[in-house]
């Protein structure tokens, strides 16, 4: 082998090897991340991917998922052309058609539904990878429909609403100045790889770390000074119990409480119901450990807290659990204080970057007047009042009952029915009741198979997009390769369809870049400016980092203007619900003796692993090779009792369905708990979750707390 051949084989970039490094971003996970990537390109093909060293967000780091980006992009089963259904819905039989024909059919059918049933009978839905949401959101409203929803219906929004009802806004941990980190459900190793360094640094300068989780995790092992291995679904009780200890020991910041909070007396009365022995029993924790953790958190301040997007709020008591934890931050005077949790509002697509854009106006200033209520409005009033999307958990009911009005068309981008309980019933309701369903995706997913028309989207490395980053940055990426096959950028599809349907909106018709210029207008940069750089550009007006004390000085965005232990918004919107963050059992709707006996296990779905993310990457071969089969973790003691061995197959059942998974025996969680990976098409664990097993405040399904049973089966049964 010559020297040059060796360099080419080793993929060394350079003029001699013909390998060029081009920059883009990885959009496999949520837009809250989206790390910068260096794509090594040779002859128009990506041959290797690394994190971009000079990128201000990820500084060269990529997680397991991002490190497999090449394998994701070049999956052999990418959809190659627009497809028209020729078999039954769900059967997966399609024939290729041209883009023109696809647009023709889509426009005709959507407009027909609009004329026949009214514009809101067409629902617009966005799944991953979320980047195009402002465009689709506006498009729904310009079309005339009030109904736009996303996977926010089961992800993070319950936390956002909990923040809104308590502090008026969310607040991130000020790791750089904290002395104690309360890592409630924190496992950055699996779901937020860039967050680990901050905790490591805090420890290096002598800070203390408390980790609260239902399983032993890398964070518990590598980072925790105190690890509380809590019973699942009991976090709310722990938070209330901690509050009682803090108040009784005089550790509360009463100056803060008096000056900045509302409803303290009611809250104090509530926490009195949670004495240490009772909390220890509910949570399964050692009372001394609770005491020690509470003392550390309350007396070794400033202390900041991790608030998880879904670990807690995927319980039917999750909204209140989250609120109860947020309340600890105000009780100890850590909210909006240096070293505590500091509000840092998002600039664009969930990313805070120290300046404001017109994203919200862009999405909502064309909201249809005189339209009907959004889907789910009646069932989930708190959601409906406080969030500008419909709650898709109610879509199944409305499709089946057609009340208060029928839903007859869905325009989906990356729509994923597996994110909702009783998935098969939802897909059947869509098959039976929709006049028209179009979906856009990279792959022919379980949901896309139900579509009448399927459009091929391209991946992040095949398109350009606007992105904000922490630190006060904006970027507009450029494609590093041509779109594969006939795929197109999602936003181009939307703008093409706006033109095809002649929607009354010049902005959408002008295309994506014009829309983005409108959104970032006033920041001092334009899309044209951003395109001159391969790296994110510092925005002139950006103020970074966020300073503590602004909310304390200007007032909380709540009805009382204060931090609300007692939520005036909830009291006003839905009198059936407790305005206080009271605790209830996470299986309260299935604790009758018969159900207890038949389904003795506590099923927790969706706990993260570094190499899974919902249903996004189960079919990426490199990642799949790490865990080839749909897996449920069973405690070693339970497995021994039931005669189940590691690697056996089990049937998992609930009153709603049954699936098969392979057993991994472990001691990570406590006995009696089953931890199932979610998102598999062949073993979709959300089939086991009942459609009414939801948090009454938000409609969030109890994915992480459901009764279940298992029995050993032969693999071929």
């Amino acid at each position, binding site marked *: 082998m010559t020297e040059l051949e060796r*360099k080419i084989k080793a993929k060394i970039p350079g003029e001699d090897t013909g390998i060029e490094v081009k920059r883009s971003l990885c959009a496999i996970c949520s837009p809250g991340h989206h790390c910068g990537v260096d794509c090594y390109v040779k002859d128009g093909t990506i041959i290797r991917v*690394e994190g971009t060293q000079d990128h201000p967000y990820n500084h*060269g780091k990529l997680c397991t998922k991002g*490190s497999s980006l090449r*394998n994701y992009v070049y999956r052999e089963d990418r959809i190659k052309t627009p497809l028209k259904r020729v078999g039954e819905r769900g059967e997966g039989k399609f024939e290729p058609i041209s883009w023109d024909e696809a647009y023709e059919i889509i426009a005709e059918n959507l407009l027909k539904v609009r004329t026949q049933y009214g514009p809101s009978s067409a629902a617009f839905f966005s799944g991953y990878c979320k980047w195009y949401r402002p465009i689709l959101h506006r498009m729904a409203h310009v079309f005339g429909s009030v109904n736009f929803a996303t996977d926010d219906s089961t992800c993070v929004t319950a936390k956002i609403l909990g923040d809104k009802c308590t502090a008026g806004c969310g607040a991130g941990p000020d790791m750089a100045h904290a002395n104690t980190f309360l890592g409630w459900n924190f496992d950055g190793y*699996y779901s937020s790889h860039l967050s680990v360094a901050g905790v*490591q640094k805090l420890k290096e300068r002598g800070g203390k770390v408390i980790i609260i989780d239902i399983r*032993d995790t890398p964070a518990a092992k590598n980072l925790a000074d105190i690890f509380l291995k809590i019973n699942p679904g009991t976090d709310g009780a722990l938070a209330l119990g901690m509050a009682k200890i803090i108040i009784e020991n005089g550790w509360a910041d009463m100056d803060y409480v008096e000056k900045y909070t509302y409803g303290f007396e009611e809250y104090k009365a509530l926490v009195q119901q949670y004495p240490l022995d009772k909390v220890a029993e509910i949570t399964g924790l050692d009372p001394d450990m609770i005491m020690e953790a509470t003392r550390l958190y309350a007396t070794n301040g400033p202390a900041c807290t991790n608030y998880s997007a879904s670990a807690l709020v995927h319980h039917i008591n999750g909204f209140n659990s989250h609120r109860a934890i947020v309340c600890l931050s105000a009780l100890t005077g850590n909210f909006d204080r240096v070293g505590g949790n500091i509000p840092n509002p998002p600039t664009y697509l969930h990313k805070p970057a120290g300046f404001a854009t017109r994203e919200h106006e862009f999405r909502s200033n064309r909201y249809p007047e005189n339209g009907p209520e959004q889907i789910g409005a009646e069932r989930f009033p708190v959601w409906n009042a406080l969030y500008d999307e419909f709650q898709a958990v109610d879509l199944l009911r409305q499709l089946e009952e057609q009340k208060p009005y029928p839903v007859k068309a869905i325009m989906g981008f990356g729509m994923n029915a597996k994110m909702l309980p009783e998935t098969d019933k939802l897909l059947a309701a869509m098959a039976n009741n929709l006049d028209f369903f179009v979906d856009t995706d990279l792959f022919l997913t379980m949901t896309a198979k139900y579509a009448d028309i399927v459009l091929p989207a391209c991946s992040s490395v095949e398109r350009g997009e606007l992105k904000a980053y922490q630190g006060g940055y904006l970027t507009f990426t450029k494609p590093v390769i041509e779109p594969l096959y006939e795929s197109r950028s999602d936003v181009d599809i939307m703008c093409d369809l706006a033109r095809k349907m002649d929607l009354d909106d010049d902005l959408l018709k002008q295309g994506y870049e014009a829309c983005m210029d409108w959104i970032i207008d006033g920041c001092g940069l334009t899309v044209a400016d951003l395109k001159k750089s391969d790296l994110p550009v510092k925005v002139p007006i950006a103020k970074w980092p966020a300073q503590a004390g602004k909310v304390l000085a200007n007032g909380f965005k709540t009805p009382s203007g204060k931090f609300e232990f007692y939520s005036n918004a909830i009291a006003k919107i839905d009198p059936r619900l407790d305005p206080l963050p009271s605790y209830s059992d996470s299986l309260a709707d299935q604790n009758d003796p018969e159900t207890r006996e038949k389904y003795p296990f506590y099923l927790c779905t969706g706990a993260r692993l*570094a190499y899974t993310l919902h249903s996004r990457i189960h079919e990426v071969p490199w990642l799949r090779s790490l865990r080839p089969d749909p897996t449920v973790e069973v405690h070693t003691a339970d497995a021994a009792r039931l005669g189940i061995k590691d690697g056996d197959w089990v049937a998992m059942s609930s009153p709603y369905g049954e699936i098969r998974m392979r057993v991994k025996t472990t001691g990570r969680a406590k006995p009696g708990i089953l931890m199932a990976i979610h998102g598999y098409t062949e073993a979709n664990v959300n089939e086991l979750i009942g459609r009414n097993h939801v948090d009454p405040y938000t409609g969030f399904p109890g994915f992480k707390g459901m009764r279940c049973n298992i029995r050993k089966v032969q693999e071929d049964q």
Partner: protein
Amino acid sequence: MKHVFVFDQNKCSACSACMMGCLDQNDTDIAAGDVCFRKTFDTEVPLADGSTYFAYISAACMHCVDAPCITACPVGCLSKDPETGFTVYDNTNCIGCKSCAMACPFGAPRYRTSDGKMVKCDGCNERVKNGMKPACVRACSFGALTCVTEEEYKSGVSGQACNAMIDQMGLRKK
């Protein structure tokens, strides 16, 4: 300049990003049954006191100073790169006898089914010679896997490595 891989098990989570980096760099044909040169372990070790130790480990060729695979190979495929110190190979003459794999205490050399030849981690020798990090090290976000020069290793990192090894032996009180 000789290079050394250093693994700190107190920073590892067996996230397997290192494996993804390795697969990406080496175009390993998973579909054909070939396996990654690096492997992670997420292992639970029962301790004498009844508790469990959760071990997160990433392992590949250790690039031993006195590598037994080199002497085991009957056709001289394996050698030490004098510049980097990595155990490298040229499998042109490989007869697929697997002697190298049997001689290796870590099972690092792999038999590739597609052409019946031995392959293994070469420390990303060519990358390192060109001033780049090995692919697995480049993919590690947590600082668990690093690759340093012998001088850097001797001047301090060795203490860290020693700590990691003691931890791995389970001698330390929890």
